């Protein structure tokens, strides 16, 4: 098996995605199938090949460190689920 139920629980925790206990086996099987499918590319020899992260081999452009944006914090806070005094509200982190 290319991936184990233990690994599925581990990666779901990393991805902050909850998996119900009764779904772990099924998901392991489904994701295992997909991983077996992609594993066929391991037969290609890629020694000495440089990875291609940008399809046109373009280099990320930098811009001058100048303020170009206007302050839109009110607009952005306006769509947040919970806001108080210009801050995003989340559950208590430290008791």
């Amino acid at each position, binding site marked *: 098996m290319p*991936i184990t139920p233990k*690994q*599925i629980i581990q*990666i*779901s925790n*990393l*991805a*902050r*995605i*909850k998996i119900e206990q009764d779904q772990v086996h099924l*998901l392991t099987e*489904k*994701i295992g*199938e*997909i*991983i077996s*499918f*992609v*594993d*066929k*590319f*391991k037969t*290609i020899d*890629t020694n000495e*090949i*440089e*990875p*291609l*992260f*940008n*399809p*046109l081999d*373009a280099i*990320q*452009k*930098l*811009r001058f460190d100048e303020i170009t944006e206007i302050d*839109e914090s009110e*607009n*952005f806070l*306006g*769509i*947040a*689920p*919970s806001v108080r005094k210009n801050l*995003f509200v*989340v*559950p*208590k*982190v430290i008791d």
Partner: protein
Amino acid sequence: MEIHSQSIAQLSAGLQRKDFSSEEVTRAFLERINSLDHLYNAFITVNEEGAMSAATKADQRIANGTNEILTGIPIAHKDIFCTQGVKTSCGSRMLDNFIPPYNSTVIGNFNDSGAIILGKTNMDEFAMGGSTETSYYGPCYNPWNTNKVPGGSSGGSAAAIAASLTPGATGTDTGGSIRQPSSFCGITGLKPTYGRVSRFGMIAFASSLDQGGPMAKTAEDCSILMNVMSGNDPKDSTSAAKESEDFSANLSQKIDGLKIGISFQNHAKNLDLGYQNCLEQALNQLEKLGAKLVEISLPRNSFAVPTYYVIAPAEASSNLSRFDGVRYGYRCDNPENLHDLYTRSRSEGLGDEVKRRILIGTYALSAGYYDQYYGKAQKIRRLIRDEYLSCLKNVDVIVGPTTTGPAFDIGSKNNDSISMYLEDTYTVGANLAGLPAMSIPIGFVNECPIGMQLIGRDFEESKLLNVAHQFQHATDWHLQSPIKKNNA
């Protein structure tokens, strides 16, 4: 000819001649959506009020002579492009309450040109899918046969054009999401070169593959949409340093002497006989127009789908980490602590296919597996691109099928991820290589339309549009309509 049957070019000419007003055109399409979209579920949001108000302004521009070619033309947008003040859901419960405070560059460009935002079209959740069945808003149905999928992920845009609910639309294409639905719905769609159309404000799925593009009934209309959509954008650091060009300028050029590469070996084993016959006839037509066929070989392309299904989920797992229930989007009720807030907001707000891909991506990027999967996939990607570039030194365009067959039945591939992923067999190569590619209608199999794919060199969209226009000048597949068939 009725308003809804006209192409963008025809509507634009009619507006210029004052045969009708933008208000009349916009109302005609809104009325069709209101009376027919319950059959297709192509729209998530209809922008009725905003569209009519924009149409009034467009009519003023036309009256005072400051109009452009798209002024007053209603266009539908895939619900992945942020539209200020209009809900942008990306087909997900996660963004069901998201009303963007800004416009994507593409939408801003359309607004500046005076085009009308007709509404936002249905799509696979976060563009992950090839059937528009994973949408939180329910599946979209193919206007040619409502038991069939319209393709995806830009299925709502393709279905809306096929049903003449809009004359044109935007789509996005990460692994075939413009071309495959275009093929399934009998319309014309173009995925431009990576970097040609700004990704600013286009909700990210896989950033090194995503590319927005036009969808319409004809290549000519796609060229008109491209003229507005494309161009360098300082807000997108991956935007190509190329100014927009006039994509309509070369449409009428003859294609005499054009070298077309085709890999018969690659296609013969996967295609059914009906599709092969249509493709052969289309190639004969191109030969009659003066093109020369050249046999090419793309053996690495058989690894394109596995490569894609490592890179795309890996980038998705990173991009979708922003949806955490804190700053915008869905938040779970009564979170116990911060971890619970993140985990339940994501688990309740995202659908199964999206969660599956995030998990695959997280695995491919995790310690101990990065080199085996993500690193390896990016190396194979270079081999695939090199192979395409080598072929494109000897030929002007590469031609083949867009899909492995016509539209499939709704629900038929829901439990078989691999089979669904293999739908992308012919399309993902162009995304991995960053090359421009388009799909045009070439006939019917089992009364459903099928398409032919054209792949070109970097930034040679004009060449693809030229070949497609010449083909459409000589054929009438793009003029077939499910409305004529169903009398809708």
